[in-house]
């Protein structure tokens, strides 16, 4: 299937009308009309709230005492950045991201190899792998939470090295592991579908040639297959990492942020929606946004991803 989507040369190349001509002006007007509605809707829900969050973040403002709103400058930011809770949540969030993406990359690649090679039951496998992708995260969170609880779950009974009465949600490490399991289960299929598209683009001829030259399976994987699907791997890692960094649903459902499982998204949510601290919450929202940008920047730098190219733009 993906072979039909091999990049084609820029369709517009060579036929762009000269700038300033009637035709180009008409084209510009048409384009503006076509693009404007989408851009406006995207900006309504993002631009205004971002500016408002930025503005509110300089105030001490609580919904429970709206009349006491007071300009406090950078004080909210200083409070957040000097609080150990903020840094613990950043640490936990980064841990969620690194561990889940690393595991998903390995398992997702194995799944992609299976899907790529398999001839029988193709439809059945592809249908099954879309189920975790499509299922509501809240539902999968519930399923895994019940699976891990010792009163009624099956996990303790199935793991021979775990005590029957072991409480996964009693301490940070096991609770974080349980949340990660749910997250990994839900999003590995997405990763494997992106990798499958990358695999489909590796030429069979090259793999055959390497085989003829006597390369082992392991050598073919590292020297031929993986380097040739670099772009697909990068895009998959980038998208999953940004998603994992914003983790919220699974934590909300499985522990409600208890025993140190809280992510930075969850902290922001708790401050604004549960505790009505709009000023402090806005500062956290801005910090969350800046840290997402930083993560994106680091990954792009690290992998030298050319997103524009990967997107075929």
């Amino acid at each position, binding site marked *: *299937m*993906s072979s039909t989507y091999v*990049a*084609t040369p820029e369709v*517009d190349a060579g036929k762009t*009308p000269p700038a300033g001509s009637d035709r180009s002006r008409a084209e*510009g007007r*048409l384009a503006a009309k*076509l*693009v404007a509605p*989408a*851009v406006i*809707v995207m900006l309504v829900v993002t631009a205004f*709230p*971002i500016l*408002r969050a930025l503005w509110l973040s300089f105030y001490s403002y609580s919904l429970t005492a709206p009349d006491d709103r007071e300009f406090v400058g950078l004080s909210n930011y200083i409070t957040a950045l000097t609080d150990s809770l903020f840094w613990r949540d950043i640490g936990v969030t980064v841990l969620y991201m690194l561990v889940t993406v690393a595991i998903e990359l390995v398992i997702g690649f194995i*799944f992609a*190899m299976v899907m790529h090679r398999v001839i029988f039951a193709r*439809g059945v496998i*592809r*249908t*099954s*792998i*879309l*189920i*975790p992708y*499509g299922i*509501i*995260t*809240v*539902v999968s969170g*519930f*399923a*895994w939470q*019940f*699976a891990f609880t*010792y*009163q*009624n779950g099956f996990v303790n*009974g199935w793991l021979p090295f775990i005590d029957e009465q072991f409480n996964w949600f009693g301490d940070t490490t096991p609770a974080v592991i349980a949340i990660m399991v749910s997250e990994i289960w839900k999003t590995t299929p*997405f990763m494997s579908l*992106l990798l499958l598209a*990358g695999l*489909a*683009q590796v030429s069979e001829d090259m793999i055959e040639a390497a085989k003829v030259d006597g390369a082992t399976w392991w050598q073919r994987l590292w020297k031929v297959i993986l380097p040739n699907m670099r772009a*697909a791997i990068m*895009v*998959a890692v980038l998208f999953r990492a940004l998603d994992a960094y914003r983790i*919220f649903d699974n934590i*909300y459902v499985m522990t*409600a942020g208890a025993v140190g499982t809280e992510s930075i998204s969850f902290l922001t949510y708790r401050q604004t*929606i549960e505790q009505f601290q*709009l000023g402090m919450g806005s500062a956290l*929202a801005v910090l*969350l946004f800046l840290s997402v940008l930083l993560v994106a920047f680091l990954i792009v730098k690290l992998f030298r991803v050319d*997103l524009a190219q*990967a*997107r*075929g*733009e």
Partner: protein
Amino acid sequence: MKQKIGLVLGVALVMLWCLLPIAWILSLSFKSQDAVSNGTDPGFLPLDSFTGWDNYTAVWDDEQFRRSILNSLGISLIATLLSVILATLAAYAIARLEFRGKKFVLTVALAIAMFPVVSLVSPLFDLWRTIGLYDTWPGLIIPYMSFTLPLAIWTLSAFFREIPWEMEQAAQVDGATSWQAFRKVIVPLAAPGVFTAAILTFFFAWNDFVFGITLTSTENARPIPAALSFFVGPDPFQRPAGLLAAAAVIATIPIVVIVLLFQRKIVAGLTSGAVKG
């Protein structure tokens, strides 16, 4: 031969991975409430505590639950329809026309796609209450549109690039206007792409949780994921597992139906939208 065994094992592994939690939640939904909360039937299957359809009828009798299903269906379908129309127009312009600001549109879309939703909800909560959109259908439809437009625009521009545009020029030579050429020639060819974008948008809207819990307060607009989390009160450790599982199974049915019907298109859309190298 060895390879074949490996493949069969691989397939079994993939299937087990995908379906085990589904089987588990199905099993929970048939266990009796008592057995689950007292832990008298802790195994995987509902052996001692099978209750038939009791949990399902109990959930379905809950007026609020039925209402949230209706909310989710209505809101997701409207958001999908509107989002796909706007994305189709924009993607056509991006794939096809030369204009200033093309980079800007793509950058905005990219920035929004990686935006942390939680950063937006409190100002949006404030704004929606001021202008009366809080706890209404449009109050969720608009955010869903904003967040699905980037994905829809990318997926669709990827599809639109594959269309042989000479056909459209031929139509124009025959006297059709740009608009007519677009509607009569391109729209039918682009239909599969539009369809894919629609499915992905529907998945997003159906799955959303953060907007659902923050921008609604009653059954007026509360969608199913939010309703599931409120179904049981605030304590995450004492939940009516059987009822919740039955509700979760019902909420999963639309997704399973879509997956079964459009499996091919979803895979093609996901992969072509995201990876073109």
